[in-house]
């Protein structure tokens, strides 16, 4: 059995004070998050204050490489099947995402993946992951 990836429409992203820089970077093909200027830890999702120590934070770039922590092919929540996943990035943070550009039935926890970007309505580029 195969369940090929199919493009599905992506709604416009939320652009606000917390997200604007992230979406600007994403259009350049860059994935980023925020790091604490006090304790030095990176975290996800990006916040203005560090969730580990409440210190101030600054943007930092991410490699876009990681492994699948968990994955579920959602088959009956709409007309198009899609793969939702948590990907553990090499930097030590795990983010919710979609896996794309592959046969979903071959996906496995522990598999290496790399970031790729898919267009949303309104022109934003949404980071997703594909097998590395």
């Amino acid at each position: 059995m195969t369940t090929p990836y199919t493009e599905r429409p992506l709604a416009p992203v939320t652009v606000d004070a917390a997200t604007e820089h992230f979406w600007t970077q994403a259009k350049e093909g860059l994935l980023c998050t925020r790091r604490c200027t006090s304790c030095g830890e990176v975290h996800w999702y990006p916040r203005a204050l560090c969730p580990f120590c409440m210190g101030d934070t600054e943007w930092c770039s991410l490699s876009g490489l990681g492994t699948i922590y968990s994955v579920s092919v959602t088959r009956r929540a709409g007309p198009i099947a899609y793969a939702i996943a948590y990907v553990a990035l090499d930097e030590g943070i795990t983010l919710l995402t979609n896996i794309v550009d592959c046969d979903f039935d071959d996906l496995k926890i522990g598999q290496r993946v790399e970031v790729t970007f898919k267009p949303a309505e309104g022109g934003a580029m949404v980071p997703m992951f594909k097998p590395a």
Partner: protein
Amino acid sequence: MTIKRKACIAGAYEHPTRKAPDKTVAQLHAECARGALADAGLTLQDVDGYFCAGDAPGLGANNMADYLGLTKLRHIDTTDTGGSAYLIHVSHAAQAIAAGKCDVALVTLAGRPRSEGSSGVAPRLVTANTPDVPWEMPYSPVIVNMYALAAARHMHEYGTTSEQLAWIKVAAAAHAQHNPNAMLREPVTVEEVLASPMISDPLHKLDCCVVSDGGGALVVVRPEIAARLKRPVVNILGAGETIKGQLGGHVDLTWSGAAISGPIAFKEAGVSPADIQYASIYDSFTITVLMQLEDLGFCKKGEGGRFVADGNLISGVGTLPFNTDGGGLCNNHPANRGGITKVIEAVRQLRGEAHPKVQVPDCTLALAQGTGGSLGSRHGSATLIMERQ
């Protein structure tokens, strides 16, 4: 301060409807309130504490308290942790009673997701400014696939199988066949669960709870008041609550908030998991049950699959009878929030009023456990331990 034996559940009522196209949500709340007060032998005029959560229409408790005609209120609590909120309400009611803030607390829940067409595969409701939404909504998280991520990881880490998860549904269905109000009353087999459509790997349709209209209400009172009433006295022995999230990106789907709320409740109650004779375990999905059972200490972490297999949760068959009303998997999941029905069936068991086919003999110690929100991202967890006096 402890709440141990400082308050009692004197009234419990589960609305019999599972589809209510001709009633409003407020009306369902009121019918549940009337039912629970009548069950306790109390009236509207006795209520001085009111508890409700996000299913109650309007601004906090304002609109429902006014609709219900509650004019003697001196304590209000609208804590909302999704489906687990109502277990927290019972705990908070006990705290308020112990602190002298109220004497008779009313908790209500009601909703019409079935009539309104809101199911578990619809996008979750979010409000503007919810900080995690911009980072997650592009990926289409829905209720079922976020629980599926927890299930997939559990299988990877511990070797849990779909057959083992199916046993949870089989046990719920074995109980539901005796509940005339249950939405699904047909017994099912492991094979039938596995043959049902795959919704989001590895959760099949029959791993998912029902979508039902309905509601429930509870009345929590001071022990002196409970002693004057005609109903069997159900004491609250201990309670725990917490919220678990994504831990700043250090996501760990192998444990739920029950790992925190459970030990707090057991310590306050002064009992251990081995003492519990009946357990109501929140069953939005089969995986929800399995992880909570592990986290509460009914078995070791990773051994939940073996623990639930072969009918171990079936009353009269296994060692831990669970959800003898059929639970959310078969009976009822009003407002897509199953917390209150968990307490209601535990009260039935402690009173000896469960269906004779599922009643646990001489049931004196019971537990109710709720998980509200998403096991795969952020959820509130609440544990409640009760005894028959």
